[in-house]
């Protein structure tokens, strides 16, 4: 006994020192993300802020004309902002109900086999690169719109919104579905046990109980819509006008950056203006993410 004891007793004191070392190292690496976020801000500001030496802030934001390369360049991004706004609203209006249908379907209606098929399918959509969706919008949806809706160009506000909504549906659906499925079975059973049917249970118990999770999903979805570049670049049409119809071509903020970066001279005013748009996007999505973060924390708290 004592003999064996000794064997166990001769342990590795150096492993303790190793432990401390590892912890320190991990801390430093752990701070990388913060450092990156900070660096992004620094570089966006460094490249973008000097714009405002030549262009006033309100001219920039509320200016209705965007002629970066003309002899008398004007850098008003108001049409771009409105384009982004409209696209976001319309895409959300399409995406949210569909996503919630999918989420409720998967978590509440589908049998286990169907569920095991549909859920991966939705996750497949999530992984399809946006350039593919944009490509599809260009080569299939646009001609379809021209043919059936009597519009001049199939690349327009509506097409972009449609494609964007298709892109975010999996995001919203799967986060909402997580929230809905994490409503404990016991709550549903309690509701059934009181004589409620499935629909009443879904509407009165399940959805309210998962509401903040669903909100998180929606906010994150919207944030993704605002930030998406390739789809709008390919199917929004690219006109810097203030849209007046669903089928007007538009140019949202992101696609503007992507479209013009190549031709903007490094360090020039145009270049800085594009970075300034980047700053706007950064701030905008930052705010949305804070909201989503807040909501999901609140949600976590509730479920405990």
């Amino acid at each position, binding site marked *: 006994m004592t003999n064996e004891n000794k064997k166990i007793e001769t342990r590795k004191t150096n492993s303790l020192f190793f432990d401390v070392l590892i912890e320190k190292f991990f801390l430093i*690496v*752990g*701070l990388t993300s913060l450092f990156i*976020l900070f660096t992004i801000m620094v570089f966006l500001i460094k490249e973008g802020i000097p714009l405002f030496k030549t262009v006033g802030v309100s001219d920039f934001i509320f200016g209705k004309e965007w002629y970066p390369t003309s002899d008398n360049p004007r850098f008003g991004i108001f049409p771009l902002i409105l384009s982004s706004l409209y696209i976001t609203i319309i895409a959300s209006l399409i995406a949210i109900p569909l996503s919630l249908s999918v989420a409720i379907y998967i978590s509440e209606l589908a049998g286990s086999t169907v569920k095991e098929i549909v859920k991966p399918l939705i996750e497949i959509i999530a992984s*399809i690169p946006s350039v593919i969706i944009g*490509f599809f919008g*260009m080569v299939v949806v646009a001609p379809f719109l021209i043919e059936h809706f009597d519009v001049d160009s199939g690349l327009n506000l509506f097409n972009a919104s449609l494609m964007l909504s298709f892109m975010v549906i999996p995001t919203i659906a799967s986060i909402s579905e997580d929230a809905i499925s994490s409503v404990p079975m016991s709550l549903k059973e309690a509701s059934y046990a009181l004589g409620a049917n499935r629909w009443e249970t879904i509407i009165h118990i399940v959805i309210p109980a998962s509401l903040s999770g669903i909100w998180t999903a929606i906010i994150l979805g919207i944030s993704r819509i605002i930030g998406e570049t390739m789809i709008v670049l390919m199917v929004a049409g690219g006109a810097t006008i203030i849209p007046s119809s669903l089928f007007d071509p538009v140019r949202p903020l992101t696609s503007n950056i992507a479209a013009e970066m190549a031709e903007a001279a*490094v360090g020039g005013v145009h270049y800085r203006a594009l*970075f300034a748009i980047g700053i706007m996007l950064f701030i905008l999505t930052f705010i949305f*993410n804070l909201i989503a973060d807040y909501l999901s924390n609140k949600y976590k708290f509730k479920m405990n």
Partner: protein
Amino acid sequence: MKRKSELIQMTGFFLIRTGTFIVIAFLFLMLGYIFTKGISAISWGFLTEMPRNEMTKGGILPAIVGTFYLMIGASLISIPVGIITAIYLTEYAKSPKVVKIIRLGINNLAGVPSVVFGLFGLSLFVIFLEFGTSILAGSLTLGLLNLPVIIRSTEEALHVVPGTYREASLSLGATKWQTIYKIIIPNALPGIMTGIMLSLGRAAGETAPVMFTAAAFYTPDLPVSVFNEVMALPYHIYVMATAGTHIQATRHLQYGTAIVLISLVLTLNMAGLILRYRFRKKMK
């Protein structure tokens, strides 16, 4: 009274089923369309040859290779940093405040639009650090872009490992690192792998950041150094579909490239999903 609620229930279920059907139908429509249109373009040569005749003929080898380089480059950054960050957050960080701040940073990093990442990569790596438009700059940008994906899925995987395992291991006299290394990481491994797969898929499909930092419309040769420009599949599709001189003539090549890209991304994701599915099942 009960009749009425049954009626409401039927209507509600009908709407939900319809919505789901629309979404699924759209997916099949899209994939089906692209595959039927593009399958004829796929051949061994398409995958292994250099493009010819201003890219109206030949294959897409450089784009495939470029995408692989970018994926690998991005992983070299994001995997170690991501996993270590996740381990730090779940296992080491003591102060809830620090965790909260770091996690907030990660969430926001995840929310930064990819085009903004592109801008950042452009200004920092391409211009400031003078890497030029290159594999290096692109990989770094994609790596940072992917960091939150890896961190989150690793964190999730670590969280799923029951706290009781930690306690059990510690209570047997294990040190913290022994516990992490011998108990926690092995148990979380499938979950971590999931994150890696998903992030690879994402790296392969991202266009906007690559566009600014790494991608060339056309390179005659395969890259030989990390400071070379490369072609990349998504950018290739975009350019051919919007900016080429022979947009209509190369349609079937565009479809073909789309199929290759989709297959690549879906394979990676599928692998990730299967791993995750197994992992979750095991953890239950």
